[in-house]
């Protein structure tokens, strides 16, 4: 507290070095916005994008000069870096907002109850009307079958990695689970097509598509389940062993219930991820314009392939339908996401 006794402010200031006032970024920002707007009005620039870039440049240059003059080079660089870091987040938000906004605005154009329940049977690509009901049924069935395969296998594999696995086998599995996460979705589709359609001679069906989706879900489920099992405290396992409970019952009755919320969340996220996959469906289940509620026989539509079909038809009516389909799909996926988040919060271990 020696400095507080020092009554010579000039010495104090020279030791501390200059700093910009806290309102400096705000002022520079206001000047930058004003400058960009004026320049946009007078010279035109290149639309809103060019205006934004020019505004950002004015901000960066002004702030750097001011900071360099008052605070010195190091702080000027620091301010520049802070601006850059903040703007990366804006760069990520812009496309997200733009995508969601476009989907909602364009999707609402032909959205109706009829769109949700009708199929495209006897509706030509050029004429308005029709709906995605058949595709919604297909997506729900395929995702449910995929989950029925991937969740048990994935959870068991994660149990192996956490509770039983030792040595090279567990290491190899763990490594390939990570690698499997990176398999392109189209390769999963190619594999199921070669194995089931070319190999076993079965026809393309919703079931084949579900198997391709299961391959994509599997590594996600294994990873999230593994993470959840690892955070179950060892004390719980040891308490169970101390009571004479065998390992497998400990896993089933103690470890799994403790981590259930996390596992369910992971499964929901995996479902949300594969529900929007298009490429494997294009290869493994053919497109159809009518309801086909049987996933084991014949081509079956799904929302992603419905959108693909409508957008590649290219008529104004079908493009509208594609956007409405996109709105349904994104609503479905967001529903899974939000339910997953709510579950995670609701059942998170307390205390």
């Amino acid at each position, binding site marked *: 507290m020696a400095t507080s006794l020092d009554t010579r402010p000039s010495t104090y200031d020279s030791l501390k070095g200059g700093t910009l006032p806290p309102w400096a970024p705000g002022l520079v920002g206001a000047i930058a916005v004003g400058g960009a707007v004026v320049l946009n009005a007078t010279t035109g620039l290149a639309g809103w*994008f*060019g205006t934004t870039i020019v505004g950002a440049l004015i901000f960066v240059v002004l702030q750097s000069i001011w900071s360099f003059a008052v605070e010195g080079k190091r702080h000027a*660089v*620091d301010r520049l870096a*802070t601006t*850059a*870091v903040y*703007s*990366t*987040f804006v760069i*990520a938000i812009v496309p*997200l907002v733009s*995508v*969601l906004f*476009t*989907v909602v605005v364009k999707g609402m154009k032909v959205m109706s109850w009829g769109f949700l329940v009708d199929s495209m049977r006897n509706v030509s690509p050029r004429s308005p009307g029709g709906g995605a009901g058949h595709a919604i049924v297909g997506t729900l069935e395929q995702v449910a079958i995929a989950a029925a395969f991937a969740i*048990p296998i994935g959870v*068991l*594999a994660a*149990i*192996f990695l956490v*509770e*039983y696995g030792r040595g090279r*086998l567990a290491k*190899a*599995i763990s490594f*390939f689970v*990570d*690698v499997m996460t*990176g*398999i*392109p*979705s*189209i*390769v999963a589709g190619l*594999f199921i097509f070669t194995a089931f359609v*070319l190999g076993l001679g079965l026809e393309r069906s919703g079931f084949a598509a579900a198997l391709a989706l299961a*391959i994509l879900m*599997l*590594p996600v489920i*294994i990873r999230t389940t593994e993470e959840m099992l690892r955070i179950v405290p060892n004390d719980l396992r040891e308490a169970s*062993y101390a009571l004479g*409970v*065998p*390992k*497998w019952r400990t896993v*089933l009755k103690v470890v799994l219930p403790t981590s259930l919320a996390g596992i369910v969340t992971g499964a929901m996220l995996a479902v*949300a*991820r594969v529900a*929007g996959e*298009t*490429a494997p469906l*294009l*290869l493994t289940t053919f497109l159809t314009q009518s309801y086909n509620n049987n996933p084991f026989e014949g081509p079956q539509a799904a929302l*992603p392939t419905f959108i*693909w079909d409508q*957008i590649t038809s290219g008529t104004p009516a079908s493009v509208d339908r594609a956007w409405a389909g*996109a709105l349904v*799909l994104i609503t479905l996926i967001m529903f899974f*996401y939000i339910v997953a988040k709510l579950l995670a919060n609701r059942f998170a271990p307390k205390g």
Partner: protein
Amino acid sequence: MAQATPTTESPISGSSVRRGDRVFGGLSKYAGIAVLVIMAAIAVFLVWKSIPSLTTNTGNFLTEPSWNPDGSPPVFGIAALAFGTLVSATIAMLLAVPVGIGIALFIVLYAPKRLASTLAFITDLLAAVPSIIFGLWGLEVLISGSEGIQRWMSDYLGWTIIFRNTLDLYGKSIFIASLVLAIMILPTVAAVSREVILQVPSGHKEAALALGATRWEMVRMAVFPFAKPGMISAAMLGLGRALGETIAVALILSAAFTVNVHLTEPGGNTFAANIALKWNEAGTNGLSALIASGLVLFFLTLTVNMIARWIIARRAEFSGAN
């Protein structure tokens, strides 16, 4: 049943108990092995089904740019596909990595602590948007929205050759595909970078700040050296995703079998997009040829992912900082 002697290895014993463990442990083991089997089966089936077209191909599979596997004689090759795939994925990675690392820095070190998890959730939402919707958005919003910038780049950055547009046509190009891919891999890069930045020991950061470093100097001196391997593998994982992305690219590219270095001009094709676009019109040999190109894609992404995972694994073993 004999009284079991307590061992340090397993606190439980008794043959009936052991049987339950054997069954359950065995089940979980086979579930784990299923992963290895699926990976092996993918390679085996793709190789098996691509052999017929590769043996009848009269062109050079690696250097032939055209794609006509159902013609007689069949001529096809992956030159144009490999060019489009590698160029678009690399540009996407170069664009996404600085931004993704910036997002990770923002969430962990710059943004208020209370907002961190919400901001992370928002970037994850970007990962939740399906690829076909990014494709729709690219087709209907980005292409028309970016025409002015592309023309400007052609006028003022034309000397770089890649941005020169000799046709003055701006539409479905590799450039647009790269932009969309960059947005799509952004959450991957950001999430992996965020994880490693979170692991930077706070002692390192506080030491830097205590020595009078500014925040950026702290990032450069304490965060980057520690997180660098993680960031490299984040970039590799992003690259892997960009290489295999299908539907968005299939919607955005006009699927021409040419090797064109003017990236903003219409054209370009990738392995994945080509498979999706040609699938339903392909004959027997055509399917086999597409499977062969899928095999190349599989091994390409496998290699990239394995390198990324290897870098992460090595870092985990050697990091003595914790």
